[in-house]
C-alpha cells in the first residue's frame, strides 16, 4: 500500500478533544485539589492535603460518604435483582412479554428530573397519591403490620422530608428509574443462551427450574451480571437530578441525601470553593475508575466459549 498520511487528519481531532476535554480536566482537578482556588480570585494558595484532610475528617463529608454509599448500596442490588427477576419472568412468558418490557423501560426513557418532580408531587404528604392510597388501606388486614397501624393512627411518613425516610425514598426512585435498563440487558443475555443447553440440562436430569437456573442460566449470565453491576454502580454513584430537584439547598434533611455529585455542585458551583470540589472530584473519579477496571479484569479473566 502506498504510504498515506490520511490517518493523521482522521485521528488528530479525536486525540485533541480527548486530551483537552477528558485528560486535561483531570490534571486541572488534581492540581486544584491541593489549592484553595475560587473563580474570580486572581490567585490561589497552595494548601497541600488540607482539602483531602477535611473530606476525611469533617462530619459533613462523612455524611456525604454515608449518603452516597447507602444510595449505591441500596440501588445497585435492587436494580440488579429486580432487573434479573423481571427479565426471567418476562422471558418465560408465552405472550404479552413485549408489553411488560415496554412499560418497565419507560422510566429509563423519561427525563429523570421531570419524573423526580412528579414523584415529589406523588409523595406529597397531604395531596400526594401515595399517602392517600395508603390511607385507604387503613382498617383492613394491613393494620396487622405494626408500621401500617401506627401510620394510620398518626400520619403516613413525610417521605422526602423525614430524615429517617429521605435517603430510602430517593433510592427507591433510583431503583424505579434504573431496573428497566438492567432488565433489558438481562433479556438480551437470556436470549443469547443457546436453547440446547437447557435441553441438555433437562436430559441430564435437571428437573426443577432452580436446577436449570443454577446449572445454565446463572453461569451463562455471568458476563452480563458483571457488566450490569458495574454500570449500575457508576450510574448510581452519579445520582444528582433527584437530589437537586428535591433538595436544591443542603442535601436533604440533616444532609442525609448529600450525595457526592451534589456535594461537588454545591461546594464548587454554588459556594465557589473550587479546591474542595476538585478534591471530591478526584476521589469520585478514583471510585468510578476502580469499578470499571475491576469489571474489565473480571470479564477478561473469564474463559469464553468459542
Amino acid at each position, binding site marked *: 500500500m502506498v504510504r498515506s498520511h490520511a490517518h493523521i487528519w482522521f485521528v488528530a481531532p479525536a486525540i485533541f478533544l480527548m486530551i483537552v476535554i477528558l485528560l486535561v480536566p483531570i490534571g486541572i482537578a488534581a492540581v486544584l485539589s491541593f489549592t484553595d482556588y475560587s473563580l474570580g480570585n486572581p490567585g490561589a494558595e497552595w494548601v497541600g492535603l488540607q482539602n483531602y484532610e477535611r473530606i476525611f475528617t469533617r462530619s459533613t463529608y462523612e455524611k456525604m460518604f454515608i449518603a452516597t454509599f447507602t444510595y449505591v448500596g441500596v440501588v445497585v442490588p435492587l436494580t440488579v435483582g429486580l432487573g434479573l427477576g423481571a427479565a426471567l419472568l418476562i422471558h418465560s412468558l408465552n405472550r404479552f412479554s413485549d408489553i411488560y418490557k415496554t412499560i418497565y423501560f419507560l422510566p429509563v426513557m423519561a427525563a429523570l428530573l421531570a*419524573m423526580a418532580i412528579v414523584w415529589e408531587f406523588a409523595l406529597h404528604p397531604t395531596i400526594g397519591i401515595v399517602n392517600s392510597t395508603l390511607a385507604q388501606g387503613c382498617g383492613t388486614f394491613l393494620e396487622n403490620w405494626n408500621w401500617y397501624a401506627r401510620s394510620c393512627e398518626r400520619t403516613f411518613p413525610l417521605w422526602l422530608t423525614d430524615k429517617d425516610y429521605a435517603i430510602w425514598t430517593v433510592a427507591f426512585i433510583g431503583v424505579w428509574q434504573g431496573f428497566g435498563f438492567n432488565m433489558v440487558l438481562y433479556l438480551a443475555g437470556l436470549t443469547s443462551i443457546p436453547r440446547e443447553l437447557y435441553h441438555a440440562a433437562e436430559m441430564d436430569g435437571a428437573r426443577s427450574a432452580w436446577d436449570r437456573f443454577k446449572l445454565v442460566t446463572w453461569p451463562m449470565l455471568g458476563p452480563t451480571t458483571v457488566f450490569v453491576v458495574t454500570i449500575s454502580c457508576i450510574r448510581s454513584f452519579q445520582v444528582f437530578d433527584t437530589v437537586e430537584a428535591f433538595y436544591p439547598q443542603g442535601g436533604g434533611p440533616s444532609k442525609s441525601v448529600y450525595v457526592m455529585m451534589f456535594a461537588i455542585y454545591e461546594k464548587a458551583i454554588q459556594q465557589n470553593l473550587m479546591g474542595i470540589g476538585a478534591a471530591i472530584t478526584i476521589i469520585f473519579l478514583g471510585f468510578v475508575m476502580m469499578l470499571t477496571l475491576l469489571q474489565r479484569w473480571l470479564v477478561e479473566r473469564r474463559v469464553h466459549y468459542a
Partner: protein
Amino acid sequence: MTAMTHVRPLPRMEGTFRFSTTETIKHAVLILGAVIVLIPFYVMVSYSMKSPSEIMTNTGGLFGAQELFRDDFCVKLGNAAEDCMVRPLIYNYTTAFEKAPLLLYLLNGVIVTLSIFAIQIVVALPCAYALAKLRWWGREAVFALVLFCLLIPVHAIALPLYIMLSKVGLTNTYAALIIPWTISVFGIFLMRQFFMTVPDDLIDAARMDGMSEYSIIWNVMLPTAIPALLAFGIFSVVAHWNDYFWPRIVITGNRDLFTPPLGLREFKGDADGDNFGPMMATATIIVTPLIVAFLLAQRRFIEGITLTGMK
C-alpha cells in the same frame, strides 16, 4: 391431550395458549410491578388535565371532570370573573407555554442534542476508521488512550470543565452545552468494533475504484454503519435530551439557553400550589417526544440504549 400436559414444557417450547397457574402468578407479579412503574406517569398525565381543586382533593379520575373554573391570575389582572372561566386541560397546557418560553426550550433541546450527535459522528467516524482499518505508527497507543478515556465519565469531571469554559468566557452559550460532549470515546470504540467486522476487501475494492480514504469513510463506511450509527444516535440523543446536571452547571442566568429539563426546574422553582397543573403539563411535554419515539420504534431504542452493554 390430557397426558401431554404432564410434559413440563421447557421455556417457550409451546406456542399454543393454555391456562396455567404459574403463568397466572407471573402475570400477577408483573402487573403489580407495572402499576408501580406507571404511577408517576399516571400522576403526571392525569394532573396535567385537572383543575387545582381536583388536584388538591385528589378527585376527578384520570381525565378530570373538565369543569370550568376561575383563573385567579386572570381576575387579578382586572378582567371580569366570567371572562376568566377556563377548562383545566386547556388552561394547564396554555399556561405551560405562556408562563415560560417552553417552545424555545424545546428548540434549544433539539439544537443541542442534534449538534452534539452530528459533531460526535464527524469526530468519531474517521478516528474509528483509522483505528480499525489503517495501519500506522502509534495506532496501538491511540487505541490504548481510547480505552483509558472510556473510564472517565464526563459528569465526573464537570467541575474542571466548567472552570476551563468560564476562563475562556464560554459559560452561558450553546458552545458550553455542546463542547464537553463533542468527543464520544464510546462512539469511537463502538464504531471501531463495528468497522473491524467490515471485510477489508470492500475497502480495497473502493481503493481500486480510485476512491480517496476520505471518500471511503463517507461513501463506503458510513452507509454500512447505518444500523450501528442509528443505535448510537438514539443512545446519544436520549442521554443529552434528558441531561440535567451539565446544563444546570454551565447555564446560570440566561433563560434563552435553557434546555427542557432546566426550563421545568425553573418552573418548579417559582411554582405555587395553583401551578401544579401547568407544571405537570410542562413535564408531560418534555417527556413526551422521547416516549412517543420510543413507543414507535421500541426495538431500535432498546438496542440503542443498551448499546453500552457491548463495552
